């Protein structure tokens, strides 16, 4: 595997995005597995004739797996995420199992959104969403930006697109 001589984006996301992901995504899987274990298990044991210790182990494994996944993914995703501008191109690199590298010409972007959810706001984070024309795969997201940095990026894109000079 020869080292690629192509430039790579190198800006990272905010470190606290890991905590945010843990909270936002991890919490839901925690709730789901807790429900499955503490509510689902007794119910199943009571009303399902085929219930056996094997099934209990399967359920336990699934719940633990779900929690482990929720705990493990945020740091891994954070470690891989890079973005940056190369001239007129917005580059992104991310993914845990499947690694993706995207390049979007700034002038092909149809519009730019800044999204800040309630928990995101708590962490002072923002997500930049850019849309290109087309139906499939036309939205590109950069999560975990500091709010000020996200605004800077948005302004940079708007500037580069030339929307300012109306």
């Amino acid at each position, binding site marked *: 595997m*020869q080292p690629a001589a192509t430039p790579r984006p190198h800006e990272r996301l905010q470190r606290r995005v890991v905590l945010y992901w843990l909270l936002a995504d991890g919490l839901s899987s925690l709730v789901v597995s807790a429900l499955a274990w503490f509510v689902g298990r007794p119910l199943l044991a009571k009303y399902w004739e085929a219930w056996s210790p094997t099934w209990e182990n399967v359920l336990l494994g699934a719940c633990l797996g779900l929690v482990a996944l929720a705990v493990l993914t945020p740091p891994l995703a954070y470690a891989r995420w890079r973005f940056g501008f190369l001239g007129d191109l917005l580059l992104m690199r991310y993914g845990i199992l499947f*690694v993706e590298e995207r390049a979007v010409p700034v002038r*092909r972007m149809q519009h730019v959104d800044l999204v800040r959810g309630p928990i995101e706001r708590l962490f002072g984070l923002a997500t930049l969403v850019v849309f290109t024309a087309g139906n499939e795969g036309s939205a590109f997201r950069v999560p975990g930006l500091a709010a000020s940095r996200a605004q800077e990026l948005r302004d940079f894109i708007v500037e580069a697109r030339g929307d300012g000079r109306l």
Partner: protein
Amino acid sequence: MTDDSEPPAGGAPDPASGTAAPVTAPRAVVVLAKGHLHPAVLLLRLLDALRQAAFPVLLGAVFQPWFLVLAAVLFLLQLGYAVARYLTLEYTLTADELRVREGILERQERRIPLDRIQDLGFESTILRRALGLVVVMVETASGRGVEARLDALSRADADHLREVLLAARRDRTSAPASAADGEHAAAASPPPPEPEWIVHRSTSGELLLRGVTDLRLSAFVVTGFAALQLADQLGIATRMLGIAGDFQQWLGRLSPVVLVLLLASLLLSVIAFGVVTATIGNLVQFHGFTLALRGQVLQRRFGLLTTRQKTLPRARIQRVTVEQPWLRRLLGFAVVKADSAGGSRQQGEDTSGGWDVVVPLTRLAAADALLPALIPGIEQQAFGWQRGSRRLILRTALQGVVLAALAVPAFWAAWGPWALLALVLVPVWALLGVLAWQNLGFALGGPFLALRHGIVGRYLAYVPTAKVQAVVVRQSPFAQLLGLADLTVYVAGGSPTRLPDLTLGDAKRLALEIAEHAAVAAAADW
């Protein structure tokens, strides 16, 4: 009040544009065409309403008389709605936009800027054709497909609308907006139509071959399933099971040779039935297919019962594909398709009505020869085809190994040593890998990206790099192990173009090159 007597190619300029011409205000609204639906539409709606009323009337006559009242009310409502719609719908074409106004209680005015109009399609069912009517469909790049549907105009009105629209758009693109205001007065009357160049005309032989080679197994499955469901609903299924049991016993008494022959002939007759229906379908759909070029606009005309006309400005083409499924490849024939912004389809699938088909079927050489008519400039490019990585074969073989490793233990319990048959997956997958590698190729020729892929069939795609919206390099876990990567190129229309199994270095280099091309082109557009 449509003027049916008007000649098709817009001989007499619209009276409205004549009066508007001397106005010198900077934003004078020049009405280029204006009109209503054709009155014969009312006849169509009447027939529709009658057809829909037939069932309630039947019910009323047989069971409950009050169904008759219901039918009458429905009928009147429908007819009233049709009349009101006919009376209120009005379209106006100005130099900037197409306006469609309609509505009785809530008025609605739809304004479509000319720049945004992607396509103007005409469709005419046999009944409409007898009445001289055309359904006009206005498509934009929104991805929703048809934005406005005028059902129906007289053929003359529709032709006039198209001529004027094309002319207006030509003016807009050729003259800068600020300088053009003065000249608009002169340009308002439709200029003489440009000469038409027939790029391709399908022969009946080609269409026949298209039908014969239109082997779609999925169609059999779908029809089979539908037939089964119908049989189930009619309560035939259980009776059929009984028959099937008898049949099985009868079959058991036959000698194996006769049995095989019987099954083979049954299979053949099913295939023959599929081929015959596909052939008839293709002949009817694409009868008299003509691809013509007028100025910068491609026009397709086809259809036996329902005639269709579709314009496609060359500048809007996002991708051209030359497709050869295995049977057609064997015979040396190909289908040419073009994606424009707004349309969306999967690989190898026709959208309904064959909208994206540019050439239904032709010899591969002929298909290659007419590419410059679709994407001009491609004839000047020498494509230096590059191969994908040989590690692709390794990757598919490894996938085969994994599959076999999963399948053998899974089947062992039930079948014993017979489960080892699953090991066949390894060489089969390796063979698929070899075939895929042989067909895989890519080339960057100036402003075009060319891609070739396939396993038994072969698919060629040409994407103007100027149209590229985004480029993605993707590595699956397997690919990371082998240093491979997929490159996906997104354009505004159609499905993304994917180049699988390049080496990581190639993929990244190509991605960056394409993206930079696109960025430069985008900067020039701005």
